[in-house]
């Protein structure tokens, strides 16, 4: 069964006939939905969430958890809301005595063998079994028989399985067979002895998307090893963001506690990543928590040492020197992990200094890893989030596929050298030694920044607001999840201030300003502004038409 197609209306389909609709009553409210909608989805449109486990919009519906049974007038038995489609004049009750009674009964069955180990369960606080039982379950359990014990199993990858907590919804099995299309999981045995398992010791090793089964597990049966016992659900703050691991631009949430990213979860966006993200992106967050950050602007002294100074002093000195050198060719190196706003500000700065060449280096993998059951999602070859943005700003790729080399000209340049974000891991301390002015803008201090006249501390994308342009040209926003260390500031703010001083133009005060300036200056970003981008992003408008969306497979 294929995954649900994106629900957002196509932007250019004016002549399509209006879809047939059906009008029915759910809990006394009249609802009109397209023909073929399920009762469960129809109820969602009026804000009624019918409890369910096995149903997931991205998977087939086996209708086996029996929790979403609703009362349909005229039907002899309660009907599963997840597969029963709406009909005209249908009268549905999701909170009648019958429907509630059924749910209470089913929930009681779930608890017969459930270990009730909520105090030590990672899912506690965001568990659908806990929530449903709390809301609608029986006050007291009647089970006095010994419980079934399956124990714990390491499924490989990042996945740990607690068999006793499993509610047998088989979402994980269906994800692996229908979406990842690598059927590693199965239900072993039958009846009350049924348990999820892999092929003996085979496990999930070598799969690329199995982390998603932890997300879709409605209870604490499948948990992440990386997150195991790290934080309680209710202590986590959720910040919408965009995955920076490749150019797909999966919408994610950063879950933080105490200013530390604890885990990354995918955020639903049918145009980009559906409900999913790859295991690489999911694991790619520790760098956001790294502590060895540059916390203050550094200015090189005459004796070769560096001195931490205030922003005003650093930028003042830098401006004075830049004005002296204005007109000398600039060579800049940027990272494709920088936001559109940061890159735009850098491009402006280079222009204000008299122009020059901007290059970027970015790692590329040999192959795309496509999610077979949702083929518009892949771990892209470009392993940086904003390669497209850099390209649209006229920056050129240099270096090898492992993001090394290609900087020979910059290294020996005797004019102005600006580096934004590139860690220069392959360069030694003599990088930029012959430059008249070498400015290093970054988060950590590499050996290759020793020769820099000025080092400016900036924030990571997890600490600032901004946008990335994904491989298909979609501009997507992210929000600050962490507080930046020390005096680090967003690059667009720092560079924008310099540009303002050099050109006399207004200095952007917010990321939205920075984007607006970018949209005005560069047609490829035109027609969009932050409010329009919302949480799910949009394609830039060029001469009135949206750039074709790769995410829809065009």
């Amino acid at each position, binding site marked *: 069964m294929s995954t649900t197609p994106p629900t957002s209306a196509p932007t250019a389909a004016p002549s399509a006939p209006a879809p047939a609709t059906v009008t029915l009553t759910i809990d006394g409210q009249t609802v009109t939905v397209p023909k073929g909608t399920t009762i469960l989805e129809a109820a969602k449109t009026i804000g009624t969430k019918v409890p369910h486990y096995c149903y997931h919009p991205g998977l087939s519906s086996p209708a086996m958890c029996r929790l979403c049974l609703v009362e349909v007038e005229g039907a002899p038995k309660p009907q599963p809301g997840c597969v029963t489609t709406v009909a005209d004049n249908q009268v549905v009750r999701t909170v009648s005595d019958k429907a509630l009674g059924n749910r209470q009964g089913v929930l009681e069955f779930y608890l017969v063998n459930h270990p009730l180990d909520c105090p030590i369960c990672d899912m506690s606080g965001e568990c659908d079994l806990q929530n449903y039982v709390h809301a609608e379950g029986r006050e007291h359990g009647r089970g006095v028989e010994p419980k079934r014990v399956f124990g714990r199993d390491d499924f490989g990858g990042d996945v740990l399985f607690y068999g006793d907590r499993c509610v047998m919804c088989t979402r994980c099995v269906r994800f692996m067979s229908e979406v990842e299309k690598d*059927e590693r999981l*199965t239900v072993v045995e*039958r009846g009350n002895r049924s348990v999820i*398992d892999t*092929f003996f010791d085979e496990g999930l090793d070598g799969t690329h998307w199995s982390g998603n089964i932890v997300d879709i597990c409605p209870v604490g049966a499948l948990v992440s090893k990386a997150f195991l016992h790290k934080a309680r659900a209710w202590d986590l703050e959720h910040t919408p963001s965009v995955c920076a691991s490749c150019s797909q631009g999966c919408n994610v949430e950063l879950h933080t506690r105490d200013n530390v990213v604890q885990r990354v979860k995918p955020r639903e966006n049918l145009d980009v990543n559906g409900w999913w993200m790859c295991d690489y992106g999911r694991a790619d967050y520790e760098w956001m928590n790294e502590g060895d950050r540059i916390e203050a602007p550094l200015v090189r002294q005459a004796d070769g040492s560096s001195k931490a100074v205030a922003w005003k002093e650093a930028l003042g000195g830098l401006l004075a020197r830049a004005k002296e050198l204005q007109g000398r060719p600039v060579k800049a190196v940027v990272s494709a992990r920088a936001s559109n706003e940061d890159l735009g500000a850098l491009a402006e700065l280079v222009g204000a200094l008299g122009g020059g060449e901007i290059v970027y280096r970015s790692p590329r993998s040999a192959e795309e890893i496509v999610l077979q059951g949702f083929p518009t999602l892949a771990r892209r070859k470009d392993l940086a989030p904003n390669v497209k943005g850099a390209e649209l700003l006229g920056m050129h790729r240099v270096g090898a596929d492992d993001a090394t080399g290609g900087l020979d000209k910059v290294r020996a340049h005797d004019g102005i050298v600006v580096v934004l974000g590139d860690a220069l891991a392959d360069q030694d301390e003599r990088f930029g030694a012959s430059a008249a002015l070498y400015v290093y803008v970054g988060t950590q201090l590499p050996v290759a920044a020793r020769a820099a006249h000025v080092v400016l501390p900036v924030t990571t994308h997890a600490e600032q607001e901004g946008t990335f342009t994904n491989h298909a040209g979609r501009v997507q926003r992210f929000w600050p999840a962490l507080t930046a260390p020390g005096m680090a500031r967003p690059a667009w703010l720092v560079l924008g201030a310099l540009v303002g001083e050099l050109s006399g133009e207004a200095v952007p005060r917010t990321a939205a300003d920075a984007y607006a300036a970018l949209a005005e200056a560069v047609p490829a970003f035109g027609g969009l502004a932050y409010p329009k981008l919302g949480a799910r992003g949009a394609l830039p408008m060029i001469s009135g038409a949206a750039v074709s969306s790769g995410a829809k497979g065009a």
Partner: protein
Amino acid sequence: MSGRSKGAPFKNPGWAGNTGEFDLSEAQVRGDDFVGERPKHGGHASGAGTLPYMLADKEPEARLFEGEYQQRFEKILTRYPTKRAALLPTLGLAQEIRGHVNPETMDRVAELLELSPAYVRGVTTFYTMYNKAPVGRYLVQVCTNISCNLCGADEVLATFLRYTDTELGETSEDGNFTVIEAECLAACGFPTCVQINSRYYENVTPADVQKIVEQLKKVGD
């Protein structure tokens, strides 16, 4: 593979006949004029099932699907519109050869039918007739469901355990017997029904058990 001798049903526990008045010789099954071997070739290409036997002589290390078994496997494939549908008969065939279905067998069957090993494991464990671990030369399945139970199946089961000197679900020390409880074998009018390998023994009373066990032991010698 054990030999078969006409008219002596106990000599071939792979053959499913009956005891007493229902006793079917192979000749009776086919008709009076039938002489021939068990159809290892697997029947008509598009029709008759390739019927796996549960044999006394098991070869856990045997190569799978070679020679005549290869031909039977290929015949199985012709009978279904999808390769997946051949899974149950193919597992049955593998069990006939090896006596049980182990992980290696599942892996091989998965490869042959272009399925994932995990999927094959899921299917194998759903069905009770696939032995997931080695069993004795004779798998004694005593029906203890309602009709047989009303007529004393529990005592038959206990008597089998006594004469085969084994525990429920365990294999006797001499490797001859594994005794398990079975669900209804659909011979409720002829209680107690006991299935030993491929063969049904009907109307079994505790008094019959010793004789059956002794005879089976003799076949092994």
